[in-house]
């Protein structure tokens, strides 16, 4: 929450104190002289001073309270008691940091206060947004603590570009690129993202602008919606200190359902070197096992669960505010330390933040901020079917003792493993003998200056620089399958990313007459982005396991360099009639270096809001009613370097190779275009005890820049085209209520509901479908197909006869479908979040229930558990006699299947481990869970040195209330319930809906202590 003081041009000075109904001072309440731009905020004791003109009416507003208007008259002292309630004239921070009354907005915006994010924590704060905003879907990459997240608002609109919401801090967009997301089910390491660097303790509030409405001000990156973060600022008056200390413990929320009857082996016989659990019943029989010792064959029910450890996270933050009338400062330091549920996977992050705001003269104010983040991620986890930690673990036969596994290395440095594999290894080898570490240093600086030209107009200039360097090292010990060359392998990379924003804004408002008011913003902006990447790989090490480039047998180097510039002119004008009818008109023109001359594209928008409750007399139970509608167009430029045909140099042969790049250049590249229309209603009822905010929207993204396959015989494998029309339409609904509101007991609830329907209206005149990523044969692929929906998954399946019966071959085995089957869509049909907040005196209780209904996810881990005979459901028909109900095709006729098979034959037919019939391992991703629960006790003692003290016990991902099941029931096998958490995906890119060797999500319980001095 912030309010820009426009300076004072008035005669009389009034002062006073703003308190809440329980006598506590209200800090930071807005005090505004109505009809002017004159205003201030209350200090830490709730005091304010304001010079006002004659006949002034001042309004006191504070988020969460009912505002009050007071006619000053002859008073010099105005004390006000604000009553709690749902704020109507709430101030919302909108694009470019401009505060506006929420009631004037022509688009949907939802606000979250900082406190809602700091109680229940995650190493990447974006994960804590889940369930709190209607229409916001967060999934995270399976790469352990600090991994990237995908934050999507209102569905996916771009086929190949990012569908992530834009994050903006204090008016400045942050680079939230998610480099190196795993985009196929083979897997790899996911990069972190920019949002993970945001320190939740510095957040004052968050506004979520769900549609493209902010695009005119932030440009095309805002087309996926904007998450506006306002950070804390200094205040004048006494020094205040906020300290927060938290500790949290994590354990895996979900693990596979495993069988504990049959031991290592094949065909019912024990095999000391077998990879799976198709061996004999474990009856304590003595056998020589893989260790070479004679041990009894006994179930090891916890050999998977015990591999995990209790993760922990500690955060300590201190924030200091101090200042005078002229200079205010805020300083904070935060340390986060987390270790994940897999040993070795850690995060250590230090954030220093300094902000200085000045009011140097009546007309001149400045704001400067510098944030420094140092983040160290150790032992990032792999995801995917390749030798990831979790995949290696899940492949452990059910009779392997964990203490034997822990002996992962022979004296000669060779890996100890129970089977010979081309890719899988002992998971203890993986965590001890491979590593991926990444250090990020990020500095974000912001300077802005405001000059008040006159009462109605000010100029704001702002320059921000966001720069970070990633320094990574990957090590693979000698003998690591798949990744190590002779002596071991080592890679080192540097990535430097720089983003500079410069803006010049003219902001003003004008009262035309008593009925009409005008406010406007005009601006110029320049956005320069640059990234530079170098990766050096040692192809083998001359001295084994000496991990430095100096030991390399040979080196290979990869580089990347991207530079682009975007210049813009924009303007927005709002006309208001009697403060109940608002019309917004905006327009923007961009010039992008990535487009062909004249580099230019233009996009306008239009919005209208009517506050019905101020226009006409409504029934008394309606406290407030507003209708809004808007139409927005957003243009978007493309990636750089697409206009001219390029040739790449690569290492190899004697002197290297030069190859014409497989993608044909597009000289006549056009900007993408998204149009959106939204209508909404915002109403408060029964003295604000109940609120309803509902939005209907439709967006169409056309002219998308797509890289589509081209017949390779043309010499090119891909071409860029501008095509396609992706439509998203949906509804978002937020219902708030206070069913009980007594002095000693308050119950507030918030319900968020969102449904999005996506349609691929058209793709290309010649090409009607393309894979986002083909999971061919491994799991499932995401096919973008005309008439389909974004996120449709296809995979191999079990063939069915025309009458719907399963088909078997002559030997009784299932038959593969001729073509890939449609499985479902990875997006939820709808999402629901229900937050209940109770407060009984000093105790507050908060419970967030989060539901994701519909959507499917395919699990590659599950396919491996089936193939290896580790899954609980593989125990049926181990001894044979399994006659699958269905038919056998002979010529063109079908006869009933009568041939029995056994479980091993069945499960090794439908899954070959790494490759599988994805349809059989696809689950309905529906789930309802207790997302968050917190109990807080406020033990503040009045008038003591400690102004505020609150202790909370917090929990995240407590348990599931319900979970989906497999989309195919295998006859003779009990219903298979989804055992994994669909929040965790392979990566945070557009290839969603796939679980493969993914780290289980965490159930967390923690303690949080918040003190203010």
């Amino acid at each position, binding site marked *: 929450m912030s309010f820009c003081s426009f300076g004072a041009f008035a005669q009389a000075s009034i002062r006073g104190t703003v308190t809440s109904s329980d006598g506590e001072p209200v800090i930071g309440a807005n005090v505004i002289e109505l009809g002017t731009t004159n205003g201030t905020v209350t200090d830490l004791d709730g005091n304010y001073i304001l010079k006002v003109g004659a006949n002034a009416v001042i309004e006191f507003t504070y988020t969460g309270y009912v505002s009050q208007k007071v006619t000053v008259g002859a008073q010099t002292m105005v004390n006000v008691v604000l009553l709690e309630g749902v704020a109507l004239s709430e101030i919302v921070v909108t694009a470019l940091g401009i505060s506006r009354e929420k009631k004037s907005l022509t688009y949907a915006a939802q606000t979250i206060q900082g406190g809602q994010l700091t109680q229940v924590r995650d190493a990447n704060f974006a994960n804590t947004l889940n369930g709190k905003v209607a229409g916001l879907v967060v999934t995270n990459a399976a790469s352990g603590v600090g991994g990237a997240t995908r934050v999507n608002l209102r569905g996916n609109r771009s086929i190949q570009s990012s569908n992530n919401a834009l994050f903006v801090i204090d008016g400045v967009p942050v680079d939230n690129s998610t480099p190196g997301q795993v985009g196929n089910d083979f897997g790899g390491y996911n990069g972190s993202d920019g949002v993970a660097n945001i320190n939740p303790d510095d957040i004052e509030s968050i506004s979520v602008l769900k549609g493209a409405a902010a695009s005119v001000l932030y440009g095309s990156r805002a087309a996926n919606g904007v998450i506006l973060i306002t950070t804390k600022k200094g205040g004048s008056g006494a020094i205040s200190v906020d300290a927060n200390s938290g500790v949290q413990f994590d354990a895996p929320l979900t693990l596979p359902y495993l069988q504990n009857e049959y031991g290592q082996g*094949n065909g019912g016989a024990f095999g000391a070197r*077998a*990879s799976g659990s198709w061996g004999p019943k474990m009856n304590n029989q003595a056998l020589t096992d893989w260790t070479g010792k004679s041990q009894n064959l006994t179930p090891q029910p916890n050999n998977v669960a015990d591999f995990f450890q209790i993760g922990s996270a500690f955060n300590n933050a201190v924030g200091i505010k101090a200042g005078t009338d002229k200079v205010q400062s805020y300083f904070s330091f935060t340390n986060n330390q987390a270790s994940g549920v897999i040993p070795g996977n850690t995060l250590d992050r230090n954030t220093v933040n300094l902000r200085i705001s000045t009011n*140097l*003269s009546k007309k*001149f104010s*400045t704001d400067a901020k510098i944030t420094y983040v140092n983040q160290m991620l150790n032992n990032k986890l792999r995801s995917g079917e390749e030798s990831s930690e979790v995949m290696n673990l899940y492949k452990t036969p059910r009779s392997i003792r964990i203490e034997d596994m822990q002996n992962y290395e022979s004296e*000669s440095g*060779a*890996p100890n493993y129970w089977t*010979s*594999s081309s890719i899988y290894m002992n998971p203890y080898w993986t965590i001890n003998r491979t590593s991926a570490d990444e250090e990020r240093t990020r500095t974000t600086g912001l300077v802005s200056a405001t*000059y008040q030209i006159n009462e109605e107009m000010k100029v704001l200039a702002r*320059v921000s620089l966001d720069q970070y360097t990633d320094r990574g090292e990957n090590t693979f010990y000698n*003998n690591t399958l798949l990744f190590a060359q*002779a002596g071991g392998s080592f890679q080192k990379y540097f990535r430097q990313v720089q983003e500079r924003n*410069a803006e*010049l804004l003219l902001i003003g408002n004008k009262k035309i007459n008593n009925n009409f008011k005008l406010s406007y913003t005009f601006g*110029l902006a*320049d956005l320069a982005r640059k990234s530079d990447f170098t990766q050096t790989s040692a192809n083998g090490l001359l001295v084994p396991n000496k991990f430095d480039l100096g030991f390399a047998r040979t080196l*290979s180097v990869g*580089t990347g*360099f991207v530079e682009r*510039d975007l*210049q813009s002119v924009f303007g927005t004008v709002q006309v208001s009639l009697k403060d109940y009818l608002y019309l917004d008109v905006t327009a923007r023109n961009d010039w992008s*270096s990535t487009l062909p*001359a004249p*580099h230019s594209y233009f996009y306008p928008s239009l919005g209208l809001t009517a506050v019905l409750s101020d226009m006409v007399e409504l029934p008394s139970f309606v406290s407030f009613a507003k209708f809004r509608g808007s139409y927005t167009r957003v243009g978007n430029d493309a990636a*750089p*370097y697409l*206009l001219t045909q*390029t*040739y*790449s*140099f*690569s*290492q*190899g*042969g*004697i*002197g*290297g190779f*030069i*190859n*014409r790049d*497989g993608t*044909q250049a597009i000289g006549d590249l056009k900007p993408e275009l998204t149009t959106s229309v939204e209508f909404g209603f915002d109403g408060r009822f029964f003295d604000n005890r109940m609120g309803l905010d509902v939005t209907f929207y439709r967006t169409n993204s056309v002219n998308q820049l797509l890289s589509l396959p081209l*017949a*390779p*015989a043309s*010499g*090119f*494998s891909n071409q860029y085209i501008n095509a396609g029309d992706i439509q998203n339409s949906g509804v978002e609904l937020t219902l708030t209520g206070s069913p009980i509101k007594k002095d000693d007991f308050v119950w507030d609830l918030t319900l968020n509901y969102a449904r999005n329907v996506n349609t691929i209206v058209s793709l290309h005149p010649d090409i009607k*479908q393309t894979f986002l990523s*083909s999971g061919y*044969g491994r799991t499932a692929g995401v096919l973008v197909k005309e008439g389909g929906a974004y996120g449709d998954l296809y995979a191999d399946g079990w063939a069915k006869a025309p009458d719907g019966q399963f088909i078997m071959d002559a030997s009784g085995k299932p038959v593969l479908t001729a073509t890939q089957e449609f499985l479902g869509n990875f997006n939820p049909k709808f999402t629901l979040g229900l937050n209940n907040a109770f407060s009984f005196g000093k105790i507050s209780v908060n419970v967030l229930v989060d539901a994701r209904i519909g959507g499917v996810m395919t699990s590659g881990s599950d396919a491996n558990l089936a*193939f290896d005979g580790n899954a609980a459901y593989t125990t049926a028909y181990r001894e044979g006699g399994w006659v699958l109900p269905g038919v056998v095709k002979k010529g063109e006729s079908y006869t009933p299947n009568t041939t029995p098979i056994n479980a091993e034959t069945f499960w*090794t037919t439908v899954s*070959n481990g790494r*490759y599988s019939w994805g349809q059989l391992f696809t689950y309905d991703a529906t789930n309802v869970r207790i997302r968050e629960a917190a109990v807080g006790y406020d033990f503040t003692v009045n008038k003591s040195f400690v102004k505020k003290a609150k202790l909370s016990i917090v929990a995240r991902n407590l348990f599931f209330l319900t979970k989906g099941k497999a989309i195919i029931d295998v006859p003779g096998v009990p219903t298979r319930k989804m055992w994994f958490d669909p929040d965790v995906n392979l990566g945070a890119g557009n290839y969603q809906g796939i679980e493969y060797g993914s780290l289980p999500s965490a159930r967390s319980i923690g303690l949080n202590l918040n003190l203010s001095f």
Partner: protein
Amino acid sequence: MFMNMFINIYRLAVLSLLTAIVVSVSSCTQDFEELNTDKTKLTVLTSTELPYLFSKAQSASSYAFWRYQVAQNLFSDLYSQYFATSATYFPSDRYTIRFDWLQWHWIPIYTEAVPQLKTLLKETDANSAENALAKIMWVYSFHRLTDYYGPVPYFKAGEPASSVAYDGQKEIYYDMFTKLDEAVKVLNTNKAKTPYGSFDLIYNGDVNKWIKFANTLRLRLALRISKVDPAKAKTEAEAAVASGVMLTTADDAYMVKSENGGDFNGLAGISVWNEFRMSASMESVLKGYEDPRMSVYFQPAVGTGKFDGLRNGLLPAQLNISINGNDANSNVGTRWTKWSGSSWGGQNTTPQNIMHAAEAYFLRAEGALNGWNMQGASQDLYEKGIETSMRQWGISDAAAIAAYQKSAATPIPPMDGVNSPAMASIAVKWGTSPAIQREQIGTQKWLALYPDGIEAWAEFRRSRYPKLYPIVNSDNSDLPSGTFIRRIPFLVLEKNTNAAAVKAAEGLLGGPDKPNTPLWWDKN
């Protein structure tokens, strides 16, 4: 006082800030073109870059590292039964057609060999050695491609278009003969030149060797069409031999490989993954003949110390049995991979086998049986082929080679998991009837071509030699047990991107677009 100074400095700072913004915002779009030029790449080619293009085309046409697996090893290397799949997760050994892997025997040729070769053909003088080498590499690339699929886009290849027409295999073969003839003519007038120098990864710019290479390739193609077009085959074969084919191992074509950029010897690069082992077919023949090449081609199984192979087409449940496991069967020889005691170390810089003199002798031996003038008698050429192959693989003991040439030994049962009989009953010693002699030539050529599964599968389809085992299980209803795969159907990639052309190509194929439809030159 202090405050005033502070304010003044601040004012100054802000004023410069404002100026900076105005300047940067109004700097306009003049430098956009330069800004939008990728510094990590080239946008203009000069004559300096041409050798690099040639290197790329060579490397792309004979696959490095993982592409070798998906283009060749998971298909033709199995179809020719040099190897059998030991991994449970690869169904291609049971004739499951995996188009997503197979497209790697398509995309590299068209997007990495063809564009560079077309540039070279256009940018170099038609009578230069550089131009001639580009033509030879064109033929080398395309004959391996067309022999998988049949009709492929050829005459219009590399011309940017949304649809590229396919050409019939006959027209393609005729043009390949023409190109080789033209290239040799040009090379004969440029014998002192060293085209591309060390960027020629095969012969280091040695024009005389390239002439032999081109003629041997021409001879190979002539034999390929000997059943469908005997007259043309005779003409081309005799012209090739007259012009001079490979004679000794000094003429052999290998390609330089590098540790850098993943430009590994293909077979070496993938040999560390434990996904294939010696086939029972190789075991039956090499063991039966007590062939000295056994210990060069393969090495003893790490679990048993013995040479062992497994049959093609086993089910996952069969592969899970230990006798079919990786530890119990032979990996490729130490030329490609070495066992450290716990894992395999790929010999990634081992030069890749491209084409060898031994093959030329077997081609001539068969041509002589056809009554063509091959400048030698069939038996002599056959025996010379055996000797040259032995020498190629480092076996120089003349007495041992002579004993082998006269051996009456025949293939033996491989003692595998499915109790296979001996693969065939043919002996090494030159037989008495043309039928036996043809089988002998085919069997010995199969042994000599190792590990080039692309060529071996093509020659098996044409000649039906050697008499390979049927695969144990087929997952493909078009190829029931006892039948052999005849071709790769047109790629799904092509059906998605070049649909009309694929449809038209079915007419050129002379049968349905199925794996059991024979190619033009396959008259079995």
